[in-house]
């Protein structure tokens, strides 16, 4: 009983967004972080201490593991000189959807991440920030909020964070939306709760109609219950969908391609640049990272109907999307280089770009 009351009170506190008794956020010593990174693996790239903070050279993907197990919130202050996305995850839930990310704009930014939204958060798992792009990032400050001491409060906070978290649009969203759970901690699905509630509404409506009209009408009662159930599910769907979608008035198609590749901003910007600078009668090769299934093909798609081939090591002629068309290197007028690891093919030199590893090259 006491436990239920405590859980209910905690839920109400979090749901109403009142002053939740979470411990205050603590400032992370950047010096300590850099020195710890020398003895422990905190990142796949060196953390360089500069007067303004920590500098990270992001070249593709760089992760930063923060040594604060159970942190529930991170505030990141940074300065970026290019386009970058940052994914946040819990160490134990990395690599699985939902992929929660934010764009780091050029210039100074302050971002706050609710780690309880991330999958498989535990007291022991450390927060991970994964930076995706190619730019130099200066982290000027990090604040970390430790977990609350009250486990009931924490359980409720995790449930509510997952329940209200906006949909995170990524590659897999087309296949399935993030599962909707009423309680992550207890494994209760929202659909089960809504269906159960609909049964109650049905019974009440049935009884109400019987009393009011002196006859049974299960059909009307079901209509009422169905409307209530669907409305509840729709309301939740809207709350999760609307923050995730782009509701601006559509701009020129070129601007949309440049700006609206939400989880691949550098690819979008480069595609836009390539479309503007490569003539329709020119043939194009695209060089990408060996493990990147998306960017090279999406680049060819955006350049279509220009003839396009994806340059892969060890081949003499290069096919385009889905193996369509074949181009030899000597037939290519331009190369679009997006996050590749191999050097440019001989005879080509960069002419324009949007990042260090995102540029257009032409024959020299």
């Amino acid at each position, binding site marked *: 009983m006491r436990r239920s009351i405590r859980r209910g009170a905690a839920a109400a506190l979090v749901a109403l967004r009142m002053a939740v008794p979470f411990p205050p956020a603590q400032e992370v010593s950047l010096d300590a972080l850099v020195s710890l990174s020398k003895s422990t693996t905190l990142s796949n790239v060196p953390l360089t201490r500069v007067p303004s903070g920590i500098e990270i050279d992001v070249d593709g993907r760089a992760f930063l593991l923060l040594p604060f197990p159970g942190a529930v919130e991170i505030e990141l202050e940074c300065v970026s000189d290019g386009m970058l996305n940052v994914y946040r995850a819990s160490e134990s839930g990395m690599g699985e959807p939902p992929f929660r990310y934010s764009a780091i704009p050029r210039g100074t930014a302050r971002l706050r991440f609710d780690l309880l939204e991330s999958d498989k958060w535990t007291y022991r798992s450390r927060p991970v920030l994964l930076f995706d792009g190619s730019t130099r990032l200066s982290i000027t400050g990090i604040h970390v909020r430790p977990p609350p001491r009250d486990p009931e409060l924490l359980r409720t906070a995790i449930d509510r964070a997952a329940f209200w978290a906006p949909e995170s649009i990524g590659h897999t969203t087309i296949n399935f*939306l993030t599962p909707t759970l009423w309680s992550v901690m207890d494994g209760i699905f929202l659909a089960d709760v809504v269906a159960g509630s609909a049964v109650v509404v049905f019974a009440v409506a049935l009884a109400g109609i019987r009393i009011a009209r002196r006859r049974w009408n299960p059909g009307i009662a079901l209509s009422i219950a169905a409307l209530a*159930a669907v409305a509840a*599910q729709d309301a939740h769907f809207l709350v999760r969908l609307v923050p995730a979608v782009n509701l601006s008035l559509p701009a020129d*198609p070129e601007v*949309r391609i440049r700006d609206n590749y*939400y989880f691949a901003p550098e690819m979008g910007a480069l595609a836009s640049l390539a479309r503007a600078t490569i003539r329709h009668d020119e043939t194009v090769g695209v060089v990408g990272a060996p493990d990147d299934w998306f960017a090279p093909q999406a680049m060819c*798609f955006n350049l*279509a109907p220009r003839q396009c081939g994806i340059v892969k090591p060890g081949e003499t002629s290069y096919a385009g999307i*889905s193996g369509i068309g074949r181009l030899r290197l000597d037939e290519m007028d331009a190369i679009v280089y997006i996050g590749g690891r191999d050097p440019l093919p001989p005879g080509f030199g960069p002419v324009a770009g949007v990042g260090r590893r995102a540029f257009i090259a032409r024959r020299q």
Partner: protein
Amino acid sequence: MTFALTIVAICASGLAILHVLRLSTASRTVDMALAWFVGSGWFALGAMSLRFLAGVPFSWPAASAIVLAPFPAWAAMRARSRQDAPVSGRRFPRPAWVFAPVGAYVFFILLVVILHGANTPTHTDDGIRVRAFAPILAFDGAWGTEARGILVTAGPVTTFVPAFAWMFTGTVDHFHANYFVLTSLIAIVLLAIGLGTSRGSPERGWASAFGLLSVPLFVYNCTSTYGDAVLAIFIGTAILFSIEYGRTRDMGDAYRAIALLAAAAMVKREGEIVAISVAAVIISQLALEWRRGTRFPVLPIAIAALAVAAAGASKIAAVGLSEAFPLLKLIAGRAKNAGAVEAMGSTSIHSKALSVFWYALFRSGNQGMVYWLLPAAIAVRFRAVLKPCFGWPLAAISLLLAETAVSSVWLVPEYTVNETTVHRALMVVSVPAALWIVALLTDNAYSSESAVAADNTGSNPPGDAKQEKWRQFKWI
């Protein structure tokens, strides 16, 4: 926005076909929405047949010829064109306190889908594989062997219709693939609302639109360029008319359903099997009624069959018989290897797939509350379900569900277990099922309300002559 050219041309062509086939209705809204679907099917069939059966390249003259072809016949038939008598009735659903939020939701979610869909470039593997890339191949006319494989997977409708305007402008605007999906969504919403409103039940119309837009994954897919939502939309329109036929006994509604299914057969590689299953149910219904003395519509069915056969022949001409129907090939391959696969101990993957399928239906949230409400509606309104207006469409939906279950659990269990296709595959069932549930529930709510009104006044509900006509036939 050059896609307006596509909308105008396809709808005009579709309207002409509706008049030639005497399928136009009393409602302009319904006709315009219907024209989009029928016109899309016609244009895709024409472009595909010309290119692969007659060897005529897809070009602006060819595109013009296809959309203009129905007009001479329309002009010739116009004098004796049949038109349903316009129905004057309530335009707004009642009670307002229920339908105002319903209408607000419909408008808002449509706005969200249109804005996000129009803003978002093709950002998944769709751009690099099939649906969004197929129209560019059509524009380019580069039909090499690999490209023809893409045509078969995408289907003629999603290949040729988005490319229509490009043939006149000479440039590719990649967003036309998005606009095509969005236009199809707007068309089905207009069709649902228009059909209900023009036939005396605006409540059914608005509730249908609400039900349709309450399938979350369907809503999200409409912001993309994938074909699953498009196929669900085409099948959904056919189910709407199948339900209408049950109500009105107007043979025109059965013809409309069959015409829409012929168009649906040209969406995605699964389109043929899905559309033919639903058509088989409708034709069975018509055949049963023919045995009881009703006229059997040989000609409309023959025309639809001819269209599907022409599309099939074009595919065979494009890729050869062995590659033209990849789904059949997949089924045959799976059936042949079934024994061997089970001997290797893969039964567990089928049981895993079954459990994921169950989760997809009821718990994942992707299909909304559809599969909870479907059995509830059947159980509560079982006697109504046995009536032809609901029984036959339910048979079609059951067949679709069975096909999807077989495909997800037996045919491609690996894609069900990793959840890459199972939720999308279910949309083709969820959309018709949502429309059917709404029709069943609103029929109960408003037929009892109308009956009370008629009892009280001794006359029909105001302006509801057509509803009385339904009632005469509804319970046979």
